[in-house]
């Protein structure tokens, strides 16, 4: 019998009875052919590949990460909870040492879901990786986490959630935002005042192939990880960089994904996007599972690889080389992590967020306390065109006394303010409150 070099957990939840809408890409059939391919390959018979049963996440798992407006029940379905719960099963399996690594092959995805959730953005309601990471921190005391997001779309939700957290390194490789949804993810977006340099965006030109992705891995991502020294590495394993993907313009392959995974060796991989359900996902997923299990993936290929895959042109190669050199200068040099603000200063920003799936417009005003001791107290005032006007206060894990005090003060003021709802997410005392405002 074939034996895995690394014991690998597989959490498969295709949600065969759930769709956003009947014709939506995020529908029942999405992982059907992946399941067919995985079963036909006999991957589950391999000694060292263990399949786990999913469990639903609870609202309190979500409350560690999100402010759901008006509440969790309103913005989630059972399938969101199970998808997030599948990631928690993966986390437990790895942390308890039952497996060396795990792959949560679950849907629906999550990496476009931000800290405040009014509805669905980019097919995502709940950020399943973030729910898992905060569960890992709460349950197992994990501190430093790295996320490497290899979905073709910029992981703007994960970026938002970890924007101020110096203990979470968020790296996103994606198709350049000038050419694809959500239109963000430029190198200048490099983290909030307390976490500058802990967000790294690597926008790649349309047409990037195996060579380009693997070059970025070797020359930039792996050195970044080494410098950061995470306790755990998460791969947001979107699969839409594939040359067969109908809605993106990249040129990656199952071989490429397998090689990327073998280099990264993530502790946990989580499926994100990827909607070439017949001619990319089955092969990419087989490649990732085999790579995680440490098996030889050189024979894993799409049936049309030999005829349809083309190496990236030289122009792209030199563009990427240039980009990597710039980013190495920016993120691997010693001078990066200076805090621009003065200790204790409150830095503010405003922005507009659009929820493409649900057609919601949100306006946010954010305040963060500049702090060198913790991730800083954070408050977000958010208004949506659905008539919600809320205030959310986040006190981070291991917050310093000053940040805890200011966070509580913001919350107390908020209750008296003109808001429909006021939320408190106090990670230090594990207190999660939602109060009616004075609106």
């Amino acid at each position, binding site marked *: 019998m074939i034996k895995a070099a690394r014991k690998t957990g597989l959490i498969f939840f295709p949600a065969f009875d*759930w769709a956003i809408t009947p014709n939506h890409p995020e529908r029942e059939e999405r992982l059907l052919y992946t399941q067919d391919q995985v079963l*036909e*390959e006999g991957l589950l*018979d391999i000694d060292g590949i263990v399949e786990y049963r*999913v469990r639903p996440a609870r609202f309190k798992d979500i409350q560690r990460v999100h402010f759901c407006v008006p509440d969790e029940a309103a913005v989630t379905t059972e399938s969101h909870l199970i998808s997030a719960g599948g990631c928690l099963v993966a986390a437990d399996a790895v942390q308890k040492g039952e497996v060396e690594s795990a792959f949560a092959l679950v849907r629906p995805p999550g990496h476009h879901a931000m800290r405040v959730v009014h509805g669905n953005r980019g097919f995502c309601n709940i950020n399943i990786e973030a729910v898992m990471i905060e569960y890992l921190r709460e349950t197992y005391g994990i501190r430093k986490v790295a996320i490497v997001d290899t979905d073709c779309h910029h992981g703007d939700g994960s970026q938002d959630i970890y924007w101020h957290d110096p203990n979470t390194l968020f790296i996103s490789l994606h198709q350049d935002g000038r050419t694809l949804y959500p239109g963000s993810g430029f190198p200048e977006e490099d983290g909030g005042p307390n976490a500058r340099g802990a967000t790294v965006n690597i926008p790649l030109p349309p047409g990037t192939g195996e060579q380009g992705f693997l070059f970025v891995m070797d020359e930039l991502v792996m050195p970044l990880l080494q410098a950061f020294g995470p306790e755990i590495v998460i791969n947001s394993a979107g699969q839409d960089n594939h040359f067969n993907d109908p809605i993106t313009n990249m040129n990656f392959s199952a071989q490429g994904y397998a090689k990327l995974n073998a280099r990264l060796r993530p502790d946990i991989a989580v499926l994100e996007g990827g909607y070439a359900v017949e001619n990319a996902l089955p*092969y990419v997923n087989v490649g990732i599972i085999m790579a995680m299990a440490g098996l030889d993936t050189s024979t894993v290929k799409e049936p049309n690889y030999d005829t349809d895959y083309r190496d990236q042109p030289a122009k792209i190669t030199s563009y990427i080389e240039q980009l990597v050199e710039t980013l190495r200068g920016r993120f691997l040099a010693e001078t990066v992590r200076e805090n621009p603000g003065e200790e204790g200063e409150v830095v503010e920003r405003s922005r507009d967020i659009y929820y493409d799936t649900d057609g919601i417009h949100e306006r946010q005003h954010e305040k963060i306390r500049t702090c060198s001791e913790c991730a800083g107290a954070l408050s977000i005032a958010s208004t949506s065109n659905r008539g919600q006007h809320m205030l959310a206060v986040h006190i981070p894990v291991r917050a310093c006394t000053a940040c805890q005090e200011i966070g509580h003060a913001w919350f107390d003021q908020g209750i008296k303010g003109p808001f429909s709802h006021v939320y408190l997410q106090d990670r230090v005392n594990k207190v999660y409150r939602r109060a009616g405002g004075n609106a």
Partner: protein
Amino acid sequence: MILGLDVGGTQTDTVLVEGDRVIRATKTPTSDNLLETLRTAVDVTLGDLDPGAIERLAFSTTMVTNAIMQDQMEPAGMMVSAGPGMDPAWFSIGPSYHTVGGCLDHQGYEVKPLDRNAALKAVSRIRERHIRVLGVVGKFSVRNPLHEFQMAEWAGDAFLHMALGHQVSGTLNFPRRITTTYLNAALYPLQKQFSQALVQILDEKALSAPRYLLKPDGGTLELGKSDTLPVRTAQSGPAASVMGALALDDCKGTTLVLDVGGTTTDMAVILDGVPLFSPHGIKLGPYQTLIRSLLTHSMGVGGDSEIRAGRNGKLKIGPLRKGSPMALGGPAPTPTDAMIALDLLNVGKREDAVGGMIKLGAPLGISDKAMAQMVLTAMAQRIADAVDAFLYEINSQPVYTVHEVLEDTKIEPTSVLIMGGPARHISWYVGNALKLPYRVPTHYDVANALGAAVARVTTSVTLQADTERGTVIIPEANLEKDVTPRFDLDQAVILGRQVLEEQARLMGAEQETLEMAVTEKQLFNMIRQGRITGRNIRLKMSVIPGLIPQWPRR
């Protein structure tokens, strides 16, 4: 009258059934010669009865299991077409295994035609080695058997027998399809020889009633149909006990079935009269197959298990059997000796059994009686621990729909049915250890032979329709035909039922009413550019295991 027979490791149990009564039950030693064992058992059981009065004969044998374990199979050649994916060389089996270029995708579309020259070359290589049987397997052949048919056609009549992968099972699993097909090919000559010899023995005795073999899924298969599907009859013993349980007890609620034998204890679960199935195919020695099976677990604890005193006074029972109990001249104390020492059982030399208990008890400073009770308590506890692990495994099976996750049905037995030789003497201890109400049925010591006697024919089919491709396929029945874009779930179920019934008749189902179940039913709309372009329908249907109508329902 019906004759049922179950070949065990040490003893062969045989029963004669008339109406709802077991009118005769015998135990004969199992010898190395299976056919001789069968001949003797039938002789002993029939005695001077009129063979013409026997209307049905059913056997649960160890033919296939033994042939596999003792490696008596005929060398089979293998021809495999795979395409990209896991390297098919990893699944190499047998003395002459060849991969041939060509590829089908997961929906059964041909991506790359089969390499005819490579196939012909493989055939001549296999023939050069004087190999008489061939297995041909294609990846995704259950979605489209085209490449298997081509390989078979190109092999022509060069072989005594050819086994085709898609006919084994409709389940997706290429490595298991390869293994199962290999075994079907490699066992063919032996199974044919066996079935012919058995027919001859029965004919000589003027036993001309229909003959059946028991399968691990709790159903039967007509003896004559087993030649080309030998693996389907492997490891039927545990299923014999489960069918015996169904015959002897109404099995209401969630019944845990324990069959405590000499060397092993088998466990299974019956839900309101329907046994649980294994989600995977049966494992035969080193071979993982696609053969359907009841969900059973066998552990190395039985009446004749060796007992050793471990460190800190803990008893170790099994998994080895060193021989007979000490009361019967064996070398080591056994649970059977404990039963004899407690006067629950009157067999052999009591003083030797007591001697064994005294020796075990001395270091602990306890009497032979106390020791014997401790042995039975420990044995029951080992069984209870294994039951817990078995149930945990069942309840950890992955589920793939929101509905199933939320429903979160857990299997928790409401009672335990205990069978096998030691059943009566161990039942109180086992019930206690499991904290469950327990029952010991009548004929508990030959329940397996009775199970074989009264089990009806089972079979199953897998249907997949793809209206975009315009095909429906039922690989087990070798059916592949065109469908219109309107083909829907209802039509699929009707077709499935019809084919299933044909298959059941083909496998020997006679007058019995066929109780059919749809075990999987899925419909997916196939959507391209936001438009529905077809339906993907998947069904698994089976004739579920049950009792023949001659045996009255309890």
